[in-house]
């Protein structure tokens, strides 16, 4: 089946044209990034925490099957039903079966990217099950039929006016309301009756703890606590890489997570679920969906350390300027550029090119994933496997301007050895990169190489050639 690669550069360019949105997006995320920096500076032990977080995750991934079994054993002993799903389809079938067996028709849900990954809503709704997102940002995206734009801030690309228009349509509120407070209140009022009448609740989760068979959910709205507790049925879906060995390991991660994500010390709610509530039923679905394949990839397995804080997105100049929607994927930004191609190499072949490789993502990552190096490695893989429609269609289109002039091409290629050896980098990272069009750096050349060459080097080159050189 042929899949069209995501037109990331094109979509990003469109986002850049929406000036107000683009400026807000850029500034908001940069602000969050700076708040993260402040937190980092307050804690002298920051680098040590990152190192520990990385080591714990690496250790866990190296022993993943054993920790998963330990988790399962303990969770079952606590009365939790543990299920496993190889892929999204299997996950969705499981959720549907659990809901059907309880005659549950309405599901309230707290944000979880993994259910988007599985396209769960799309699967459940035709089965007659209403799925309502309780997280405000996620609900905004749901009402607008869009994927979340950011792992932590799902609707960060929208302005108040966009939300007002959306709520006016769905909640009958004033379309000219430009007060985030009253809009947030409108959501609270609209959500409460749905929450009170729900048949089942669903959450994602941030950490699984092998030692106790518990899992941890971090939210700011407390919507996971509501989703999990208002009904007698709680289903939690987590990726198998979410596990840590010991309860005490959480100290390291909780201290890093929200500080890296939003620059706040902790999320407002950090909830530990170890057993079903009294007279309730709890199900955990452990989802693989490509993770075991990724763990078998030499260059990319360590991306499974990711705790989804979004810091790499907030710092990425390409993400900030192109918006999450332009990635056309559940995971956007630098981490998306690494993990999306593991889901579909052709469809997401353009994403590893959406980076300046400045390394900022790697610097902020709380679990020390070498993000920019993996992005670079993906480029090599994609080029080697000819999954390079981006290079062909986008970069080459730009490069064509240069290459269309045979004289210039020859001059650039054969003029000096330096030009020859730097040519590929030049094509990928210079102004020919579509991203370069929207950056201040580097400036488009004021003078073409050809004219510069004629002015400065042609004579000496001709002399050389007369002396028997090869310049044509």
């Amino acid at each position: 089946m042929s899949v069209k690669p995501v037109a990331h550069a094109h979509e990003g360019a469109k986002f850049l044209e929406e000036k107000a949105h683009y400026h807000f997006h850029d500034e908001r995320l940069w602000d969050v990034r700076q708040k993260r920096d402040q937190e980092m500076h307050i804690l002298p032990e920051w680098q040590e925490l990152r190192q520990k977080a990385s080591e714990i995750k690496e250790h866990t991934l190296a022993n993943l099957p054993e920790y998963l079994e330990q988790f399962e054993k303990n969770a079952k002993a606590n009365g939790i039903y543990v299920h496993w799903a190889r892929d999204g389809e299997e996950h969705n079938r499981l959720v549907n079966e659990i809901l059907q067996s309880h005659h549950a028709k309405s599901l309230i849900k707290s944000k979880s990217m993994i259910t988007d990954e599985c396209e769960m809503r799309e699967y459940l709704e035709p089965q007659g099950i209403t799925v309502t997102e309780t997280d405000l940002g996620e609900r905004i995206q749901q009402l607008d039929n869009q994927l979340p734009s950011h792992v932590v801030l799902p609707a960060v690309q929208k302005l108040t006016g966009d939300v007002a228009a959306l709520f006016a349509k769905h909640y009958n509120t004033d379309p000219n309301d430009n007060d985030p407070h009253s809009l947030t209140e409108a959501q609270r009022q609209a959500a409460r009756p749905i929450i009170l009448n729900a048949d089942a609740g669903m959450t994602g989760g941030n950490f699984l703890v092998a030692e106790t068979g518990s899992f941890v959910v971090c939210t700011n709205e407390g919507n996971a606590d509501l989703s999990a507790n208002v009904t007698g049925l709680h289903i939690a879906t987590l990726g198998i890489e979410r596990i840590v060995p010991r309860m005490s390991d959480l100290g390291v991660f909780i201290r890093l997570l929200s500080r890296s994500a939003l620059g706040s010390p902790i999320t407002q709610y950090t909830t530990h679920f170890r057993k079903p509530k009294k007279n309730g039923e709890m199900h955990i679905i452990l989802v693989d969906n490509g993770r075991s394949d990724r763990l078998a990839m030499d260059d990319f397995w360590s991306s499974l350390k990711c705790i989804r804080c979004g810091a790499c997105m907030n710092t990425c100049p390409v993400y900030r300027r192109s918006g999450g929607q332009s990635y056309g994927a559940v995971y956007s930004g630098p981490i998306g550029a690494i993990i999306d191609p593991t889901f579909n190499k052709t469809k997401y072949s353009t994403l590893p090119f959406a980076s300046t490789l400045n390394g900022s993502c790697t610097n902020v990552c709380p679990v020390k994933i070498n993000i920019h190096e993996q992005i670079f490695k993906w480029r090599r893989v994609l080029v080697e496997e000819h999954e390079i429609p981006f290079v062909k269609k986008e970069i080459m289109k730009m490069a064509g301007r240069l290459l269309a002039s045979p004289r210039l091409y020859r001059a650039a290629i054969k003029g000096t050895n330096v030009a020859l050896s730097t040519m590929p980098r030049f094509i990928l990272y210079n102004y020919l990169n579509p991203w370069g069009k929207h950056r201040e750096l580097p400036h488009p050349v004021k003078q073409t190489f050809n004219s510069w060459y004629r002015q400065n080097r042609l004579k000496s080159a001709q002399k050389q050639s007369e002396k028997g050189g090869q310049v044509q």
Partner: protein
Amino acid sequence: MTTIHQNARDVILAKLREKKIPQPEQFPLPDVVTLGDLDASPKRFEDNLLRMGGSLWPREEGESLEEAVRRKFPDVKICSATDEFKASFKITDLRSLKEANLVDVMVVRSPFGIAEMGAIFLSEKELSDHLADVHLAQHLIVLLSKSDLTANMHTAYQEREEFKSAAYGVLMSGPSATADIQGVLIRGAQGVRSLTVIWTD
């Protein structure tokens, strides 16, 4: 259901055993660490609670808990989850979510707080298994003792057995919050609109 999950489980585990790249001998389990500031003072707790949007409510000379709370919330429905606080009705009286939804103020006792985060802990024990009710109430008053503070997240997870024994354990650092609409911080998104701590010693 059984056939699907048994099969999937074995397939996933077998695949992980067969193909994973990181090898156990390369990545030993790091020791448990206790890093950073170990100040467990009420002052540190208070500073961080305020930062997270929570508040403190002082008791005046000779004032009972009930009087103090009434001074903050006159004329509203107060529900108590603790015997220490006498209210017109108790959390165990709540028969439905709809009743809980009508509660203006919920008063609870927290077994411990974390100074680093201004966080308080609640489990099914303090809530008499009324887990949702505490989140459906509009405002939360938390009774906490200064001697029940632990320094930071490391010490909390290492010292407090609740993390291993509670069925449900939530750390709350202030009220429900969101900044999902154009980055404007708003308290009271889905859960409680305010969280106020009263020191009981």
